[in-house]
């Protein structure tokens, strides 16, 4: 089959052999699991458990918040010891709500209910996957149920399974394909069935012959085609892989289903299989531990396991001074060693200044164009850099800033050692913040204008009512005057005032709190305190 090419790309040292020598290992149960509730793109799941509650392995502890979200499950059985903010595996070092679980060591599964895909409608199936917490395992953690939607245009002709894994050091997909190709094939067939895909292509970089062989063997007798793609970073980017396998270019802001293609990671295929065929939600993943360690290898890690515990098993070297989540091209430095492994953690790259020296001093851009040659999105990175540097966000967007996939190729080749990707990340987050502010301002403006209009209308209506009433009273008085001359001219007016006073008194009696009897002493005291404060804050009697 003819393969296509994407422009640009780089060929960094792959450094993958070290962590593929040993099979995937399982870690012993950690002493404490810190499970962040927000582990995917979209809304933060609502906690379903309380502190002190006992949970079973696979029990849902966070329910998806809306459709763009995915549920969270207890990775093992134990007790929820706290629901509190903890430092997230995020470069910001900020905290977010986590469920802290003390495992009981039994690792007892909650009852599982596998489903028959044929018996479910598309919507039911998607809800099921959302509640099983299945998200993209390639690192983007986009909820998979949203991508398993054939869409309005009909069906997706081509399903692309991404086993390219182009980032240096990372081998979790490679090992998964070597050791569990049957699960991947089964999951792939399930997804193809849901999407109605006829063409199923598995793209694997040609530097993983074992994985290619294993996948070919497992997919014999199925319509799946395993294709070796040339090793060139970032061939594993979803857009780049789709381009290489099908020749289709999916621009930013468009869904690949609009072009009849959908792409999933091999790990996602595995998770779909586990969820549908065994009823097991997503509670663990394969994590590569590599870099500055003596025995780099892959581990099956429960979400919430502190990274330091995983790294300890791989024997880090003494000069280790930080962890990176992800690979050396796109990974993020972690704010602490104890941050938990989450659904996005494909690799813990153990770093030292010796292994990844700090960048040489930044020099001015000489417009050499190396970055443009390396950019897989055909952007002009140095132009984007000038605009981002000058805070010229409009121009940056005009030059397609948001088509940048932050692969790092430009910064990799830059002879001036400019942290180009940092500038793009900065500009993107500024633009998002501005858009949030602008939306908030627009909303406030609309609401303010509406309120002013309402107040005007109320004033007008009140004035009209008053005018009408005055006219009515006048007419009545005139009528009375023409009828029987009143004994006392002030009488009707006085009667009106008396009536109003009576109404006010009644109203006052009506709003007197009536539920103050039979209250415990503490609440009585509190009411007394509030009343006292109210007395202090307000004049005893409103001035007449």
């Amino acid at each position, binding site marked *: 089959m003819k393969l296509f090419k*994407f*422009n640009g790309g*780089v060929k*960094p*040292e792959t450094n993958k052999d070290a962590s593929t020598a040993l099979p995937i290992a399982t870690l012993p149960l950690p002493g404490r699991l810190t499970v962040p509730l927000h582990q995917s793109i979209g809304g933060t799941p609502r906690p379903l458990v309380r502190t002190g509650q006992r949970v079973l392995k696979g029990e849902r502890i966070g329910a998806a918040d809306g459709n763009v979200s995915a549920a969270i499950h207890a990775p093992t059985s134990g007790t929820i010891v706290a629901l509190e903010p903890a430092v997230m595996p995020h*470069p910001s070092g900020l905290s977010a709500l986590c469920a802290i679980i003390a495992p009981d060591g039994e690792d007892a599964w909650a009852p599982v209910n596998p489903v028959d895909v044929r018996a479910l409608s598309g919507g039911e199936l998607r809800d099921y996957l959302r509640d099983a917490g299945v998200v993209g395992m390639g690192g983007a953690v986009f909820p998979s149920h949203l991508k398993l939607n054939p869409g309005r245009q009909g069906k997706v002709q081509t399903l692309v399974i991404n086993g390219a894994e182009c980032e*240096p050091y990372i081998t979790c997909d490679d090992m998964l394909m070597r050791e569990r190709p049957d699960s991947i094939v089964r999951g792939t067939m399930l997804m193809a069935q849901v999407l109605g895909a006829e063409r199923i292509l598995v793209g694997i970089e040609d530097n993983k012959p074992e994985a290619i062989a294993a996948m070919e063997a497992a997919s014999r007798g199925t319509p799946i085609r395993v294709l070796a793609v040339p090793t060139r970073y970032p061939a594993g980017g979803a*857009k780049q892989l789709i*381009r290489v396998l099908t020749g289709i*270019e*999916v*621009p*930013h802001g*468009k869904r690949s289903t609009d072009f009849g293609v959908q792409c999933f990671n091999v790990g996602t295929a595995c998770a779909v299989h586990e969820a549908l065929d065994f009823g097991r939600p997503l509670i663990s993943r394969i994590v590569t531990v590599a870099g500055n360690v003596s025995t780099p290898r892959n581990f099956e890690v429960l979400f919430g396991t502190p990274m330091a515990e995983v790294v300890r098993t791989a024997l880090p070297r003494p000069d280790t001074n930080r962890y*990176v989540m*992800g690979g*050396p*091209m*796109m*990974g*993020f*430095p972690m704010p602490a060693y104890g941050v938990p492994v989450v659904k996005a953690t494909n690799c813990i*790259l153990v770093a030292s200044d010796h292994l*990844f020296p*700090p*960048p*040489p*001093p930044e*020099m*001015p*851009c*000489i*417009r*050499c*164009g*190396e970055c*443009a*040659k390396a950019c*897989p*999105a*055909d*952007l*002009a990175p*140095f*132009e984007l850099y000038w605009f981002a540097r000058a805070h010229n966000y409009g121009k940056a967007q005009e*030059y*397609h800033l948001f*088509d940048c996939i932050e692969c*790092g190729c430009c*910064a*990799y*080749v*830059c*002879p*001036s*050692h400019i*942290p180009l*990707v*940092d500038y793009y*990340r900065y500009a993107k987050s500024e633009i998002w913040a501005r858009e949030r502010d602008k939306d908030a301002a627009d909303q406030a403006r609309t609401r303010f204008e509406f309120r002013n209009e309402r107040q005007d209308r109320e004033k007008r209506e009140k004035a009209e009512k008053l005018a009408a009433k005055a006219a009515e009273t006048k007419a009545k008085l005139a009528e009375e005057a023409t009828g029987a001359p009143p004994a006392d001219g002030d009488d009707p007016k006085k009667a009106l005032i008396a009536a109003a006073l009576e109404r006010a008194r009644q109203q006052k009696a009506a709003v007197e709190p009536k539920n103050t009897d039979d209250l415990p002493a503490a609440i009585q005291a509190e009411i007394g305190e509030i009343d006292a404060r109210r007395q202090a804050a307000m004049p005893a009697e409103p001035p007449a």
Partner: protein
Amino acid sequence: MFSSPFVRKPTSVQSVMLTVLLALLPGIAAYVWHFGAGILVQIFIATAAALATEWGFLRLRGKPTALYLSDLSAVVTAWLIALTFPPLVPWWLIALASILAVGVVKHLYGGLGQNPFNPAMAAYCLMIVSYPALMSQWPAAGHLDFATQWDLIAGGVRDLDAITGATPLDALRTALREAASPSSPNHALNASTLMDGPAFGLAGGQGWEWVALGYLAGGLFLMHRGVITWHIPCAFLGALAAISLLMWGLRPDHFASPLFHIASGGSLLGAFFILTDPVSGATTPRGKLFFAGGAALMTLMIRDFGAYPDGVAFATLIMNLCVPLIDMKTQPAVFGHKQD
């Protein structure tokens, strides 16, 4: 804390500039072989003046001097100045040009990466406008010994007999102008006849054609190393050949042959080393073609109809002016946006 990527290609501004300097060596060797070692003195003077100016401006601007001096960009500028100037101009002219190139054209515009004009070419133009006589005295190949060269460079009495006084381009132009007048004995002789003299050598002037060949070798090396792309040299030389072929074909008695245009003057140096300056040149692939093609057209116009002996310097500056527009209009289509 710095972020990804944590690995980088072992490359730097310094290594890029060093490659350019290396690529200039074959041309310099041919220069020395045919015109004596005087050029080495000029290169030394230019380098010293450029580095001193760079150091002074870096100090004034509060930049780290060691880091920026070692990027070698000033050295590249200096070498290009020495190689484009007549080899026996007094030392102070070369020094002044280097100071202007680095100080005014580069640092006053913001330093490395910010200059809109090619520093060496801007200095060349300034000098040819300010000192037209000195800037048009060119020696013929190899008949001056080093002592005489040294004396001339040091500012000794300029014995005009020692210097033939014009480049082959200039000589041809003068001859053609003369031939155009009916009273001249050479009237109606065409360019190829006029170029029969030994001073014109095989293709681009005696000695010069070998220097040009050296530049060509260096340029191919730069392309091989990926420092420059094929776009600018090919577009420049291609357009130069095509336009001069057209003119030569129409009026062979007025215009020189394409081969002569390519092999003489600053054509090859310009194609591989000057127009390819990334800072002041176009950056998009299509833009580079327009940029170099435009430069070729301007070069020929100036050579054939202008008052100056060579047009590469002025053509470069004029095209430098067009770069922002060219770049803006030739941005390549972005991934996924190619249809619209």
